[in-house]
């Protein structure tokens, strides 16, 4: 199979549980051997999408294709995919070895072949020596590894991962991210990864699918998603953003905050109302005389690598990341390069994400992706 052929395709998938729409007309092509991530807040439908591919949920409408064959109605145990569950769902009555061997035993694999495969898998996930251990004597990270080995021992063409790292602590999570990526490249199979952690999604994936409200908001490479968000939801969910109301005066000329700015976007109607995104790290602080905008510093947070300061410009609070120290009450000028301005069409999400007037440390803690991207 060629690299870019689609291994899984979802066509017009809709699902409702008890009359409540969970997925609304989802269309998605997943390429062979790619690492694709379904990203979104809880309740956005990402796990349901995964369960449809696994065969645990039947869509109300639409088709699921696997290798160009329709697999609607094919039960889970006959699909060539394997899943790593959120809390691993390891079999507590079996030891490590037997957990990994489970799928092979069901398929009645000859003992010799089975033994080779299980040992190979345990080696791959660094669990050699723990064969006889009971599941409940393992640490979270080790259980995670058993779950990975158990799933890939069956040679799936597609591995489905349902928030597999959510239960691990931060340090371990980072290690496992690297390891998962390594395993994916080593095996050369498709990984479909579900997470609500945008940092995880950006750092691991070839492509990211941003979902909200049962709909796909944007599909693209991590860079696309970060630099060219399609709407205010994506801009807000991935990283920090200043999202402003603006008007597209002409191609490559936008107006917001009462000023006109040069930008790189075109293809909008003249005087079309738009949403404007400026990332906090793309704003330069300059002397008042050189500034395109001016405002007053209202708060400063020192984050080690940089300061995160909030600047009030005509009542709208901007977030700006800078390495220059400023002081509360300072009047500063802001300079924005044309390529730092990103224009988005108005959407149902326009106006839902306000400025940083209610900004707190807590929000910062949830989304600290900028460090990676800088």
């Amino acid at each position, binding site marked *: 199979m060629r690299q870019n052929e689609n291994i899984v395709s979802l066509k017009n998938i809709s699902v409702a549980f*008890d009359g409540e729409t969970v997925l609304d007309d989802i269309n998605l092509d997943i390429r062979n051997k790619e690492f694709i991530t379904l990203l979104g807040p809880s309740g956005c439908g990402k796990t349901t999408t995964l369960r449809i591919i*696994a*065969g*645990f949920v039947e869509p109300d409408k639409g088709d699921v294709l696997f290798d160009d064959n329709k697999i609607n109605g094919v*039960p*889970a*145990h006959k699909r060539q*995919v*394997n*899943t790593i*569950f*959120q*809390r*691993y*769902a*390891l*079999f*507590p*009555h*079996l030891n490590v070895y037997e957990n990994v061997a*489970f*799928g092979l035993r*069901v*398929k009645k694999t000859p003992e010799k072949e089975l033994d080779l495969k299980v040992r190979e898998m345990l080696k791959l996930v660094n669990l050699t020596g723990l064969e006889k251990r009971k599941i*409940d*004597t393992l640490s979270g990270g080790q259980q995670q590894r058993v779950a990975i080995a*158990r*799933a890939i021992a*069956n040679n799936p063409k597609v591995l489905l991962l349902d928030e597999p790292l959510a239960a691990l602590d931060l340090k371990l999570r980072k290690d496992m991210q690297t390891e998962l990526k390594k395993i994916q490249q080593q095996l050369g199979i498709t990984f479909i990864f579900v997470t609500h952690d945008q940092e995880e999604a950006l750092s691991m994936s070839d492509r990211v699918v941003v979902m909200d409200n049962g709909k796909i908001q944007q599909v693209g490479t991590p860079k696309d998603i970060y630099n060219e968000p399609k709407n205010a939801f994506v801009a807000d969910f991935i990283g920090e953003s200043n999202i402003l109301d603006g008007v597209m005066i002409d191609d490559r000329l936008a107006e917001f905050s009462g000023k006109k700015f040069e930008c790189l976007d075109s293809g909008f109607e003249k005087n079309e109302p738009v949403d404007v995104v400026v990332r906090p790290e793309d704003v330069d602080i300059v002397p008042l005389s050189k500034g395109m905008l001016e405002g007053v510093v209202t708060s400063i947070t020192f984050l080690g690598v940089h300061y995160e300061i909030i600047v009030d410009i005509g009542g709208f609070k901007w977030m700006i990341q800078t390495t220059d120290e400023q002081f509360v009450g300072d009047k500063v000028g802001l300079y924005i390069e044309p390529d730092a301005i990103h224009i988005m069409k108005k959407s149902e999400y326009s106006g839902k994400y306000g400025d940083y007037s209610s900004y707190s440390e807590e929000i910062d803690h949830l989304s600290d992706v900028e460090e990676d991207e800088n």
Partner: protein
Amino acid sequence: MKFLSKLYIALILVFLYAPILVMFIFSFNSAESVWVFEGFSLDWYKELIYNSTMLTALRHTLLIAILSAIISTVLGTAAAIGILQLRKKITKSLVMSVTNIPMMNADIVTGISLMLLFVFFGKLIGLNESLGFFTVLIAHITFNLPYVILSVMPKLQQTDKHLPEAALDLGCTPLQAFFKAVLPSIMPGVFSGFIMAFTLSLDDFVISYFTCGHYQTLPIVIYNMTKKTVTPDAYALSTIIFVTVFVLLILYNTMQNNSERKVARR
């Protein structure tokens, strides 16, 4: 204070077990007297072996206990799984209260109502003698069911709800998934449910009394004996029953403790 609390526990144990202890001792008495212990003998146990009424009753009791325990364990486990899969909270609690009624209900009410039902139904299909083996069996399954459900349910709730899905995902058919993944992890609950059902069935008197007809179980035979005079072979029999139940209870408790310790270690 410490002495008092120890004394308190000792008193409780004495009150609980003194009667049984007396019965235990006098079952080995060589005479028939209940106040003079004349010497150790196994005569009453020997006599028991030749007491055909009692042995038949014992056979009945054991058969009913084993069968009703097996059937109610299978039905109860299936029911617990089904109840947990109910989506709506209201239906779930409704079904739970309905299944709990035989447990809360006074035995005498359950007994009489079951008898009425059996006789009514027997007449309906033209039987002269509707009470017998099958009616006691059904009655025992009825009152055993909630206990099985209640002992399986918590085990099921403890297991990862994705367990059956994981098995399906690895190639099991739904049936294989149940036997290979779900059942082994709820086995302690299933087993303790079975033991519960067995012991309850073993010593049930009231409900059996109303539903057994001529298929008399041991408690009923013993009760009928007390209308005349109780001979010490009844002590011997009761001692045997007590020891059996006691052993089963110890088994049940160690099972529970083991599985709890496992959970605690997690």
